[in-house]
């Protein structure tokens, strides 16, 4: 895993303020396609705030100030001529709590991105839905009830439906914000397997509370503490031989 792929997304000195509180402090980090980048750190370290910058989800919250650069294929996504909506189509996101649209069927949920954006496609709706559901490892479980309401699925299935929904839009980057924290261990294992297979086609960033999970699914791990990026390295190295004392304290369970 040492080959240097072209970075898909890069942040330069990214800082985020909520009013006077500095939540992310001068973070510079590169995210590569074909790799899973895990972001770990104790609660309140700014990891969720950080990835919500990557698809400009902070735009909807009053009083959030983002400084620094985020380049997606060399273009600053906070640049003046950039439409945030187009960024969100290229950078998909899956949230902590499964949030399928309760008034839509499984099929409608997968295709909901197209309904929101009127994005054109040459494929048929059934084709898109089937591919997205297969990619999210959910197709076999729901193929006989695509028109059933999404609420009929289990929590883990709902979360995979949310992943399918994001994948249907064919994003380049997939942001996963603690995607398993509301799931049981079996559902978690299925999602982790899924992340493994998805890695080849996307740049994936996963925020997780769970260090074992970071170790299992990621190739690169970044450790955040009080808004600062303390250390970023190959996952194996960061967990076995961290360069920074603070990282070692965290991964050996001295705090957090």
């Amino acid at each position, binding site marked *: 895993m040492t080959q240097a792929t072209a970075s898909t997304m890069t942040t330069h000195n990214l800082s985020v303020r909520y009013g006077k509180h500095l939540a992310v402090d001068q973070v510079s980090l590169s995210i590569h396609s074909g790799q899973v980048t895990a972001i770990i750190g104790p609660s309140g370290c700014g990891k969720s705030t950080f990835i919500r910058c990557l*698809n400009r*989800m902070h735009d*909807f919250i*009053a009083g959030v100030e983002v400084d620094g650069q985020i380049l997606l294929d060399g273009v600053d996504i906070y640049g003046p001529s950039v439409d945030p*909506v*187009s960024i*969100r*189509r290229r950078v*998909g*996101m899956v*949230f902590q*709590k499964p*949030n*399928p*649209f*309760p*008034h839509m069927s499984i099929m409608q949920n997968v295709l*909901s*991105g197209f*309904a*929101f*954006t009127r*994005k054109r496609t040459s494929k048929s709706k059934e084709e898109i839905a089937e591919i997205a559901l297969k990619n999210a490892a959910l197709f076999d479980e729901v193929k006989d009830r695509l028109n059933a309401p999404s*609420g009929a699925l289990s929590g883990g299935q709902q979360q995979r439906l*949310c992943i399918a*929904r*994001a994948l249907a*839009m064919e994003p380049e980057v997939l942001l996963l914000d603690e995607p398993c924290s509301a799931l049981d261990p079996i559902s978690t294992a299925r999602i982790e397997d899924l992340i493994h297979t998805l890695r080849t086609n996307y740049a994936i960033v996963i925020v997780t509370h769970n260090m074992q999970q970071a170790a299992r699914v990621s190739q690169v791990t970044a450790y955040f503490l009080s808004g600062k990026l303390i250390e970023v390295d190959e996952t194996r190295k960061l967990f076995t031989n961290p360069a920074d004392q603070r990282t070692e304290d965290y991964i050996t369970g001295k705090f957090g």
Partner: protein
Amino acid sequence: MAAFSEQDFLSTANEMKEVESARVIVGITREEKNAQLVERIFRLLCLSAAFLPLLILAFLVGNTVISGLERIDLDFLTGFPSRFASKAGILPALIGTFYLMLLTTIIALPLGVASAIYLEEYAKDTWFKSLIELNVTNLAGVPSIIFGLLGLELFVRALGLGPSLVAGALTLSLLILPVMITATREALKTVPKNLREAGLALGGTKLSVTLRVVLPLAMSQIITGAILSIARAIGESAPIIVIGAATYLAFLPNGLLSEFSALPLQIFQWVERPQADFVENASGAIVVLLAILAIFNLSAAWLRHHKEKSRGSL
């Protein structure tokens, strides 16, 4: 295994007796008994407080309904007002109320929903938003007759609409807008934030997420609120009297600018007449109005129930 000796058995039995007698002593003290009694009396008081208004209401409505039902027949429903109580009917008032209801819905529903969407989804927390919110809250408490006066000056006189159907509907719309806005905002608030985020993260604009996620999920509750506010509007008499609606109309309203009458107004006018027969007519009209309001409230309740069943938990 040691056998269970007689000695053991006796001592266990003794212990049990002791426990029992201890319980009697601990039992219920006098204070506890008093507390229980007070509790019971208080509950009875609250219960009768709840029942008293119900009884009075049942008596009043019962009386009216009994004398009103006797009066209602096809001629009463399809007849025009008359100097003779036995020949008088409520058709113009009934049709007037129906048109008022329709027009008020057409005017107030889009305005109310759009204002609520602005306040709930778009407005940032500025003094301007607080100003609007303050106004909406205050307007909800303004007596309906004041809205009538406003309607008289603004719609009937300044805009030259006269005491017409559309002037009446506009006045009633103003009256119920605050309620409609508040109800719609409450409905929008029930849609969880994470569903809005999900839509936005998929590349939806605020508009598309509002139209495809927020409104569909809030719709049944919005409609429930709308039905209840419209029900309030058609029961109002004061604003309609003030803008000068007709009480004696020998024709049906035939356009937006046509003169009109309405059920509450007809009731008001008949109750004022000294002849007992007209009061009986009023009872008949009251029963019709109550029936319409009951249909409104029941459909609102049904919608709410239906929503809870179909949507499950969010």
